[in-house]
């Protein structure tokens, strides 16, 4: 009881501390008084630039992306009743990344820097709309997962094709950036563009969280206790699409945090998908902020991509969760 009551405040506090830590740490460490002065706008211009233009937006971007992916993962796991679900499973991340790489390949970036994030959101929404259309026609969750597999495969193939055809090495490097996921060089305007999508998406997911708990009983019994199944599916898919699209627009595809954090949180909230939503989002934000600090501190020639680090730790965790998986009822659907 106490653990559950303290979970959200503790995670929020830890996230704040981590973001503050991100201001202190970096290739050139900055002491606390200088950071505080810069935050207050009183230090010299160089310090203010480092804090306000580089470190703070980067840390906030990592946090916001984590919120979106952790929340989406928890919601999708509740909807699909599967601890291995995440935005990637439904092909939403991959479709968003395809949208982004498409604009890069055709050099549309030159028209406006906003086109890349817009295309990512459009890709995510396109994927979610496809899935939503299928969700209206079918009650089978397996079908939705298979559609997601198809979408991911198609987006992956299309991105490979685009990379093969990339006209110059610059766009190739950009595309890799997008596919591997990173929050380096993100600015407040970048965040400001993605944040509304993420905020609306997470709000929708929060609003329908009780339905996720009802789905614990399976589709049939959930409908029996009064859940409007189609509406629930549509709203979860829409919320996930918006949040994930916004996250991919900001940082590219970062996998596995959406799988791992609900898995960690679930035992602490009595395995209730509704109550795992906020803690999962916060924990994913915290993990990405910390991971990004790690990426910046690691003495490598070329900075590691955040998405690579996330996958290095997340993928083995994914395999482990998959191997632990067992069903409670013999006739699991």
């Amino acid at each position, binding site marked *: 009881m106490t653990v559950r009551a303290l979970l959200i405040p503790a995670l929020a506090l830890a996230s704040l501390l981590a973001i503050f830590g991100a201001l202190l740490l970096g290739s050139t460490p900055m002491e606390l008084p200088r950071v505080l002065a810069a935050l207050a706008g009183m230090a010299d211009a160089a310090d203010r630039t480092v804090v306000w233009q580089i470190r703070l937006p980067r840390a906030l971007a990592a946090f916001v992306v984590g919120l979106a992916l952790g929340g989406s993962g928890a919601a999708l796991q509740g909807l699909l009743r599967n601890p291995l679900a995440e935005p990637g499973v439904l092909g939403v991340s991959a479709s968003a990344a395809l949208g982004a790489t498409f604009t890069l390949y055709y050099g549309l970036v030159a028209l406006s820097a906003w086109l890349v994030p817009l295309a990512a959101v459009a890709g995510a929404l396109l994927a979610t709309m496809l899935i939503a259309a299928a969700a209206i026609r079918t*009650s089978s969750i397996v079908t939705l997962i298979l559609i997601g597999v198809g979408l991911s495969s198609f987006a992956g193939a299309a991105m490979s094709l685009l990379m093969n055809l990339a006209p110059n090495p610059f766009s190739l490097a950009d595309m890799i950036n997008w596919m591997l996921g990173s929050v380096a060089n993100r600015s407040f305007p970048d965040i400001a563009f993605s944040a509304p999508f993420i905020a609306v998406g997470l709000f929708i997911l929060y609003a329908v969280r009780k339905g996720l*708990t009802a789905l614990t009983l399976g589709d049939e019994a959930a*409908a029996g*206790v009064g859940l409007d199944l189609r509406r629930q599916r549509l709203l979860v898919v829409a919320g996930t699409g918006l949040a994930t699209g916004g996250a991919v627009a900001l940082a590219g595809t970062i996998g596995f945090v959406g799988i791992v954090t609900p898995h960690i949180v679930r035992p602490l909230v009595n395995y*209730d998908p509704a109550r795992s939503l906020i803690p999962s989002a916060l924990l994913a934000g915290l993990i990405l902020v910390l991971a990004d600090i790690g990426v910046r501190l690691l003495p490598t020639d070329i900075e590691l991509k955040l998405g690579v680090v996330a996958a290095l730790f997340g993928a083995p965790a994914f395999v482990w969760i998959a191997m632990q998986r067992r*069903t*409670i009822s013999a006739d699991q*659907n």
Partner: protein
Amino acid sequence: MSDSEQRFELTVENLCVRAGGKLLVENASFSLRSGEFTALLGPNGAGKTSLLRGILGLADNASGNVRLQGQALAELDPMQRARKLSYLPQRRPLAWPSPVRDVVSLGRYAWGCAPGRLDDRDARAVRSALASCDLLELAGRRADTLSGGELARMHCARAFATEAPLLFADEPVASLDPRHKFRIMELIRDHVLSGAGALVVLHDVSLAARFADRLIWMKDGRVVADGTRAATLDASRLGEIYGVRGRVEGDRVDLEGPL
């Protein structure tokens, strides 16, 4: 059920359920009342589950009229419907190893309640459902640590916690040992004695004969008989419905083999 509730009646008129161009339920008409234990009998594929789903408004392609106290069921939203009709489906997968109390609390979903946040009335309903199914000591246990019989009781408690005037249960005793079969049937009977009505799909004719006030017999999507045990259960019925030879004496049913 609070005794202030007057007798509750659900009427089904010409209910048809279709799937993939096939008529699963054809022109079913009958009514169900609170305080009545009705068994729905028929061979596999007779349309029993489809009939339940059709009544509950869960079937995708259903036609006909289902009325609750004169009001068309289709006019109710899912939550309003769920407060009147509780449903224990045949397949009862549990996605997460939730504590028993939380699963039973989901019976209160239609009343706007979420596990961990029950108001007084919800808490009372959950507690009384746990008590009636002898689950108070198991309330904090994770569902994945329960035996098959305990799980069956938990799902019953979940359905009872809704305190709906009518209960629909689809093969609630399938795959239970004989003792637990009786236990679950007694729980449902007690639920009926406390004022609710129940429509229970059963494959065990002797259990149905022993517990039910009324038997509805289905075959090939049609209701072929509906009435008391004395009026509808005899050897020729067993042959007609199941294609088996059997002897019927009072509420004793002996099945002897296929016809």
